[in-house]
């Protein structure tokens, strides 16, 4: 039995031992302990090393505000987490924990050499040095600094856990289940409103858990708590969530919560997520987050064993642990006296209560005397001793602001309190303003930016009684604002412990303040001296002070350090707090795993993979796939032993010679209908649509407002008031959005309806001289002859018994058809055609062959041959722009001087002088490859392939003034060689379009 465990105290299960390991040693704790409370129960204060000076550190707090006691935790293979707060991590059998940032061991850390050099490592040190010689920064200094920095180590393997995410709407969200939060929930819950009460702790109750001696409503605090939580659990409209931290408060009352589900469990339930991220949209939010105790700032205030008094009280009352048997208490606030009394009553020999104030309430000193505790008011602390744990403390009488002669008092713990700071981080996320109140010496909420209420210690009301009353009132106010009615009950409180007191700067000392190591930001090793140095160097904004010193930027998010830093900066500047202002509080409230944010969006769920109805067939037939936007598309269909090039060459040949079949289902499809459909089309696309006959198709070109090509596709007119629009695969959503945008904001008068039908249709393209031969027997309701159904026609008919929209179009230059059938028939139709196609040696081909075949014909791919800087004329497609049209999107931009200027880059063909050389796509083109760098570049290769049909390479390119350079030689300078090319037209194959007319 350890000397520090107090069986009579605490809420843990004393009869339930739990062992875990810390740095390889087995530690015995109790069910309900945190790692920190279990270590403390075993007399171990040393838990970590600080960031810069590697000073030995112990837990200073008992909650999520802890800056020092950071550990690595491991459950099992892959389940390692760095920088976990030992004060929050609950223990379970088998938990492995380790200290961080020390080498070779926590007790003997060579990094502590930095501590000896602390005079050098002052604030802003890095900016002033490591500059000579220049080459040393990358090679010597920076690697050294980087190795020294950092706390724990990163996980190294993939996380075996998964994470969940949920949305929830509620009437009232209450953050923090201390007395104020619980009273608010009771009042709001009774109104019938949908209430969510969340608390980061493992248990609800907040400060009530640390104050068992208080009486509420005639019973002991803990009995009251149990009864009231039962009452809340009984309300169907109320949800309680523990281990759930509100991490950020966003616009329109959206609050993010992170709920920890498994990190405290002995065994992991099968398939359970580790954490769940909630996005809560609440009508009203009540913030009852309480207050955080402030450390005192004095020389050597960071030794293991120095702790916040309120936390020591928590360790005793919640965890049954005495953090020391011979503690000294140093304070400027009444609350630490109560901690001293609780510890004394549990058997500790409190060596002294040192209070900086000249006077304290007589009840306090009476109570101390009653317990035989020495009281030293008007005293200060000027130092401590003890390497790995505090051994003694120097106490000096105060003469005004000066410290008198020191007395050394031995101790094994130091409990301190510099007053309390309302916890208003979430409120600040909303850009709600704070005001400094001189009475309470605290920042309190002022102007609100969201529908929220703050109650209890969060607005400077100390004690459980006031918190209960205020919380109840906030519950009523929120319920009323959300449209419900309720009243708050009164909960009379006895033995309440309110208190006052504050300390606003580092404590007076009898040594040179320039030498004092009086820590403010414990983790980042920022001292009072650093803050003063920053101010003296001209850092007058509190944000500059923060950044120059790194005060408040540690993983406690400044919870322990911001206020002390601010107060001392104000003192150094000689300005009141109000003029210095606050630094911004930034989400998340406590560090939150990446995994929780990502939630389900992991692995194959990272983004959906859109698949066509024919995708399975492609997979069964060995297709290689490529991602195109969210789709995966069959890229090519290799036969055994074939690589991309061999497969593509074969697919190209088969299609040109007989018949290829292609899954074009990913093409975007939008149905444009309504009495003004044709007018709408005229305004959107460059082409004229009025005269396009029903059952006819046209290639449509869509520009952005800037006049550059944005999308293209074949558009069929189904009836006077209905168009079947196709878009590029990647552009479908963008085009629909753009159309909707124009329709809703620019032309609301047009009677047009837009429907995305991309996924409603499966689209199968047949290309090749045998395309009609294969298709004709399947078609009913459409004469397939060239006269009755010429190139660029569309028909609504039946194909293989399925209702179809049949297009006669070609993206390959061969006789071509595209059959659209409802998606559910896609695969059946494909298989019908596949079977019947065997007589023509039908060949399935993928996107790569499609690209080659179209390039041979000079058809562009938007996004490849154009890049958002290409006009219709640049692309050689002025023919697609209606000359008589008075308006269309982008038309005005086409007349801008630089768009109409000569010498623009124009789309041309390129043939390498050596027909076997295939150019690199993206390669640059110059007139003189021998010129010095930077070279004058004329354009670049946009598409380049081996053409099996032509037995040579072909390429498309954009080249300055390209159409005036036909037949010229240009060069593509590649590493080691310059490739000579001839500028040609863009159509390499069948320029007369004879093959379309078969």
């Amino acid at each position, binding site marked *: 039995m350890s000397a520090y465990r107090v069986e009579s105290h605490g809420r843990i299960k004393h009869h339930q031992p739990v062992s875990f390991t810390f740095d390889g040693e087995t530690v015995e704790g109790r069910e309900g302990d945190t790692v920190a409370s279990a270590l403390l129960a075993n007399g171990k204060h040393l838990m970590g090393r600080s960031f810069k000076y590697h000073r030995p550190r112990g837990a200073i707090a008992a909650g999520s505000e802890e800056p020092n006691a950071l550990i690595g935790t491991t459950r099992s293979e892959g389940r390692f987490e760095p920088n976990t707060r030992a004060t929050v991590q609950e223990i379970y059998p088998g938990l492995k924990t380790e200290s961080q940032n020390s080498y070779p061991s926590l007790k003997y850390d060579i990094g502590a050499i930095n501590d000896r050099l602390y005079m050098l490592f002052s604030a802003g040190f*890095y900016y002033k040095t490591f500059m000579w010689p220049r080459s040393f920064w990358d090679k010597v200094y920076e690697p050294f600094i980087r190795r020294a920095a*950092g706390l724990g180590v990163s996980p190294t*393997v993939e996380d075996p856990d998964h994470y969940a995410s949920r949305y929830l709407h509620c009437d009232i969200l209450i953050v923090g289940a201390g007395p104020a939060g619980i009273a608010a929930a009771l009042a709001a819950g009774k109104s019938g409103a949908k209430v969510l009460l969340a608390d980061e702790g493992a248990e609800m109750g907040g400060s009530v858990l640390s104050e068992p001696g208080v009486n509420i409503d005639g019973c002991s605090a803990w009995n009251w708590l149990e009864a009231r939580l039962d009452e809340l659990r009984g309300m169907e409209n109320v949800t309680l969530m523990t281990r759930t931290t509100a991490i950020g408060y966003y616009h329109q009352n959206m609050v993010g919560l992170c709920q920890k589900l498994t990190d405290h469990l002995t065994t992991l339930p099968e398939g359970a997520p580790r954490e769940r991220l909630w996005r809560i949209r609440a009508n009203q939010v009540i913030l009852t987050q309480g207050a955080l105790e402030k450390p005192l700032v004095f020389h050597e205030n960071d030794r293991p064993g120095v702790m916040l008094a309120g936390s020591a009280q928590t360790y005793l009352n919640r965890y049954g642990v005495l953090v020391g048997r011979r503690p000294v208490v140093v304070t400027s606030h009444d609350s630490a006296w109560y901690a001293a009394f609780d510890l004394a009553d549990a058997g500790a020999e409190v060596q002294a209560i040192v209070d900086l104030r000249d006077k304290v309430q007589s009840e306090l000193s009476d109570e101390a005397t009653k317990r035989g505790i020495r009281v030293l008011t008007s005293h200060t602390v000027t130092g401590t001793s003890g390497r790995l744990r505090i051994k003694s403390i120097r106490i000096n009488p105060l003469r005004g602001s000066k410290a008198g002669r020191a007395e050394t008092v031995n101790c094994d713990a130091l409990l301190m309190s510099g007053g309390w700071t309302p916890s208003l981080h979430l409120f600040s996320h909303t850009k709600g303003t704070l005001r400094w109140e001189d009475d309470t010496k605290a920042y309190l909420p002022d102007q609100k930016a969201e529908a929220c209420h703050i109650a209890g210690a969060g607005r400077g009301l100390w004690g459980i009684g006031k918190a209960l009353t205020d919380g109840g009132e906030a519950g009523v106010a929120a319920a009323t604002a959300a449209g419900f009615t309720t009243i708050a009950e009164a909960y009379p409180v006895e033995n309440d412990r309110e208190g006052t007191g504050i300390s606003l700067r580092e404590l007076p000392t009898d040594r040179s303040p320039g030498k004092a190591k009086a820590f403010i930001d414990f983790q980042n090793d920022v001292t009072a001296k650093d803050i003063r140095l920053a101010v003296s160097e001209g850092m007058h904004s509190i944000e500059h002070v923060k950044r120059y010193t790194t005060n408040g930027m540690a993983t406690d998010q400044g919870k322990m350090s911001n206020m002390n830093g601010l107060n001392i900066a104000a003192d150094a500047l000689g300005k009141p707090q109000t003029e210095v202002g606050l630094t911004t509080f930034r989400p998340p409230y406590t560090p939150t795993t990446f995994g929780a944010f990502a939630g389900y969006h992991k692995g194959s769920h990272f983004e959906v993979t859109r698949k066509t109805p024919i995708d399975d067939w492609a997979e069964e037939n060995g297709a290689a796939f490529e991602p195109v936007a969210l789709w995966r598309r069959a890229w090519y269909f290799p036969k055994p032993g074939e690589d991309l090039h061999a497969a593509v060459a074969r697919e190209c040949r088969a299609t040109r010679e007989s018949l290829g079949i292609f899954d074009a289902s990913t093409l975007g499809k939008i149905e444009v209908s309504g009495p003004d459909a044709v007018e709408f089309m005229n305004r959107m696309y460059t082409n004229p649509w009025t005269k396009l006959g029903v059952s006819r198709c046209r290639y449509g070109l869509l520009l952005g407002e800037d006049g550059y090509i944005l999308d293209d596709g074949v558009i069929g007119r189904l009836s006077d008031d209905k168009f079947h629009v196709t878009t590029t695969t990647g552009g479908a959503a963008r085009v629909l959005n753009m159309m909707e945008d124009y329709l809703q904001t620019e032309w609301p008068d047009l009677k047009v309806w837009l429907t995305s039908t991309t996924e409603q249709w499966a689209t199968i393209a047949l290309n090749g001289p045998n395309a009609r031969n294969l298709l004709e027997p399947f078609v009913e309701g459409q004469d397939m002859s060239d006269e009755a159904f010429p190139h660029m026609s569309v028909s609504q008919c039946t194909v293989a018994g399925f209702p179809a929209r049949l297009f006669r179009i070609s993206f390959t230059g061969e006789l071509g058809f595209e059959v659209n059938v409802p998606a559910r028939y896609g695969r059946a139709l494909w298989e019908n055609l596949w079977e019947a196609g065997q007589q023509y040696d039908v060949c399935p081909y993928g996107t790569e062959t499609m690209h080659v075949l179209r390039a041979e014909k000079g058809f562009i791919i938007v996004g490849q041959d154009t890049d958002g800087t290409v006009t219709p004329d640049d692309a050689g497609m002025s023919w697609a722009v209606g000359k008589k049209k008075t308006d269309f999107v982008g038309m005005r931009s086409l007349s801008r001087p630089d768009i109409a200027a000569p010498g623009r880059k124009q789309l041309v063909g390129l043939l390498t002088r050596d027909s076997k050389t295939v150019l690199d796509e993206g390669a640059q083109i110059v007139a003189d490859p021998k010129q010095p760098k930077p070279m004058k570049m004329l354009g670049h290769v946009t598409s380049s392939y081996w053409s099996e049909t032509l037995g040579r390479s072909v390429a498309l390119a954009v080249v300055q003034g390209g159409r005036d350079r036909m037949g010229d030689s240009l060069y593509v300078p590649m590493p080691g060689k310059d490739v000579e090319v001839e500028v040609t037209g863009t159509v390499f194959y069948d320029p007369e379009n004879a093959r379309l007319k078969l």
Partner: protein
Amino acid sequence: MRNFNAFTLAREALRGHKGWGKQWRSPEPKKSYDVIIIGAGGHGLGTAYYLAKEHGITNVAVLEKGWLGGGNTGRNTTIIRSNYLYDESAGLYDHSVKLWETLSEELNYNVMFSQRGVMMLAHNVHDVQSAQRHIHANRLNGVDNEWLTPQQAKDYCPPLSISKSARYPVMGAALQRRGGVARHDAVAWGFARQASAMGVDIIQNCEVISIDRAPSGEVTGVQTTKGPIGAKKVGVVAAGHTSVLMEMAGVRMPLESYPLQALVSEPVKPVFPCVVMSNAVHAYISQSDKGELVIGAGTDSYLSYSQTGSMHILQHTLDAIIELYPMFSRMKMLRTWGGIVDVTPDRSPILAKTPVPNLYVNCGWGTGGFKATPGSANVFAHTIARDEPHKINAGFTLERFRTGRLIDEAAAAAVAH
């Protein structure tokens, strides 16, 4: 101003750092100046520095509504690279990278420029084509940029997953070895310190509320929260608030302002050696000297002047990070924040004279202007001092949006940073 060197450092260490003095003065504004710069970000402070240093113009004030460096300069993820596609951009950003390489010595202030390499991943055929196009153009422009296979990319950045079964497997990467990161605050402070020493007045907490113009049109000064201040020339360098300021002078700007968010993890020991960006998977990451993973993605989708972004943007940023670096799933996000970025239609900056005589503007840096800080400041100072652009910024005019002579880096690559 005291020089930082080994001797002064040792001496100050011994006497408790009492003698450093202020890094910059905090003067009250004079009645008038030769040049007023609005906005004490890196670009504004740098402009003042180069005006004094290279053009002998020291009667200069930099007016800042908040604290110097508190805008995007102090909020950005500090990626520095120059492997841009177009000649104009490559010229400007490479001019900047060259200045970065000696900036610490130049300013006697360690801006911690760390050339650890910037790698841009390709995840589909289109990415590969785009990366190749950049690499070829950069090569002919004399800017370093090289292609890496997936395995080479992994060797360069071990945490990267190149698993073939990933939703978007890595197909390769473009690497600029001279790219890297720097310490953002130090850039603002270093420029401020030297500018102040040469006589530039940096006036903080001084918001410009209107711009004065003579009846004949030219600018004559500004009205501020500290009263009127006269000026022969005014340069607006106000990032996300540029359109608001230019409106005061009657100039409507082709700018949209968006929130852009970033985040850091808790600090860990060195694990991530370089900078990696992915446009298709949409996140970028590096590790600060302090040990934090520094992460960002694209802008929020709505226009806003509020520096609070939306939560779902962070979710998508982090799911992308886990997709690329599955081992970081159990790392914790420490801090998130946002800045307001000013975006032009072609995603390239405006560094130019304006239709109003004596009024100059430096803006439109959008999500990627930190890297340009010294280069842009350098040529903008030239533009103000000579009333004509330097040849490096000659193309970055305001008129180009009217005439159509765009420098469309976004269209070319859709790469943000």
